[in-house]
């Protein structure tokens, strides 16, 4: 099995799935290029997270991560919740496959965004700022995400598709003829 028992438990029985229609804060991370998208909704009462709900489009790890984050955050003060890190979430889940760490382990980020959203909304003068922000078109991140080296699970920089230790170009580049671009997309 690629996942720990804890991950499978949260994947099969995710806690706190859903939408809060009148949420005090909403945070969204990820994009379908890399595979995972998470939306967190929070309700705040006396500086505490009175309710946390999430929705996730993604793999088993992404669903388990979201569920774990919601469980860890519920009842905490906003300050405490900001201390939840992606690494802590992975640890609480009994670890995640290396290649899922970059892509699917985004739950804490989504929660933090929801808290920031709440803080922006409740700050003095926030209504005007929110109206201005809403007038702008929503951010769309459709960048070609290169997530993970298929050979060693390491992170991949920029647009490359394998990490530096697996690039053959260093060995063979002396033989490349100038002026001829590659026919292959940067994708797969």
């Amino acid at each position: 099995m690629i996942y720990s028992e804890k991950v499978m438990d949260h994947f099969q029985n995710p806690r706190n799935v859903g939408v809060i229609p009148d949420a005090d804060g909403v945070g969204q991370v990820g994009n379908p290029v890399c595979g995972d998208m998470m939306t967190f909704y929070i309700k705040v009462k006396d500086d505490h997270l009175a309710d946390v709900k999430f929705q996730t489009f993604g793999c088993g790890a992404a669903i388990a991560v979201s569920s774990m984050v919601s469980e860890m955050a519920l009842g905490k003060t906003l300050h405490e919740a900001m201390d939840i890190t992606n690494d802590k979430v992975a640890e609480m889940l009994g670890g995640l496959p290396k290649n899922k760490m970059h892509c699917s382990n985004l739950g804490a980020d989504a929660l933090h965004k929801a808290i920031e959203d709440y803080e922006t909304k409740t700050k003095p003068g926030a209504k005007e700022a929110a109206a201005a922000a809403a007038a702008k078109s929503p951010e769309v991140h459709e960048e070609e995400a290169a997530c993970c080296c298929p050979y060693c699970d390491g992170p991949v920089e920029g647009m490359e598709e394998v990490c530096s230790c697996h690039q053959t170009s260093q060995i063979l580049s002396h033989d490349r003829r100038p002026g001829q671009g590659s026919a292959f997309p940067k994708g797969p």
Partner: protein
Amino acid sequence: MKRVYLDHIAATPLHPEALEAMLPFLRERFGNPQSLHSDGQRVLEVVEEARERVAGLIHAGESEIYFTSSGSESNNFAIKGLALANRSRGSHLVLSAVEHLSVLNPAKSLEKLGFTSTLVPVDQTGMVHPEDVDKAIGKETILVSVMMANSEVGTIEPVAEIAKICKGRNVLFHTDAVAAAGNIPVDVRALAVDALSLAGDQFYGPKGSAAFYLKKGVRILPFIEGGIQEGGRRGGTENVAGIVGLGKAAEIAQAKMAERSEKAKVLRDLLIDRLPGKVDRVVLTGHRDRRLPHHASFCIEFIEGEAMLLNLDMKGIAASSGSACTSKALKASHVLLAMGLDHALAQGSLVFSLIDGNTAEDIGYLLDVFPPIIDRLRKMSPLYTKYLEEKGK
């Protein structure tokens, strides 16, 4: 729990007769076929018998079959070996955009040696149009490679027409028939291909045993040097048991192809016809009719493949997906993207591929357990919520 195996494209079970044929060569008949003593020579005879059987499956001559370790090796052999051996004639390759990575990546690494490649696009059904191949062939072109059938979407490519074009333009033609050979009729003479890859684990043979067809007289660079085996073109002590199993599986596949194919088609069509009625927003991927008899592939909107596979597995069903999350590199299938599917839809990829022995009950079971799984995952999906909101407006 009931297990329903619907992942032919990943592996087929070893045919019991192939296993029986293999066993003596894992036990007492251990001789090296290259040895001059009778322990070796008697093993050589069965290796050559297996070669005849594999040749028979694709209507080739025995001397045109080379044993390899995998379909990927055969593809690497074809692309690198043919390109490098024909370098004096030109340095341009033409490949379809939906080739297996064991065709695309060797061509890509050949770019570092001065070769260039053109990728021919496909239509929404994953079909290559022969006239596009014709257009892509130039003065420098030495090799065209288009697969016979695509394992991710099942589409059967018009290989005969493409081969004809290549012949007319005096360009070598290789076809990756790994998903096709042993499952649909393949005749290298009628198709007029110069090279072809096939693998035993796609037709009830053992894993690690595959073959490469090269038309007599076509030049190729050796793939593994330093051994006299396989005419010096692919050195290394023969995987005798694997070769024997491959030969037996080829013989059975040839005899049973029509029967297996008819049975699979009935179940495939049942699945293709019924699944979209069970769950809304499902699209069939690949061509509806020109597809492998055992292959039904879909994209399920708003949810992701790995989550579906894990849920299906918990219900005892084995299937595949081309979603980013299921690939080690976490990237969506280049095949689905080449067909024009967007990233979100490609993430919902599911492939069901039938094996001999699957029944209508198996399909019924899948159709029963499928809707609740999809429902549960969609309830979790922000994309589905957004869709419902927009639909409600």
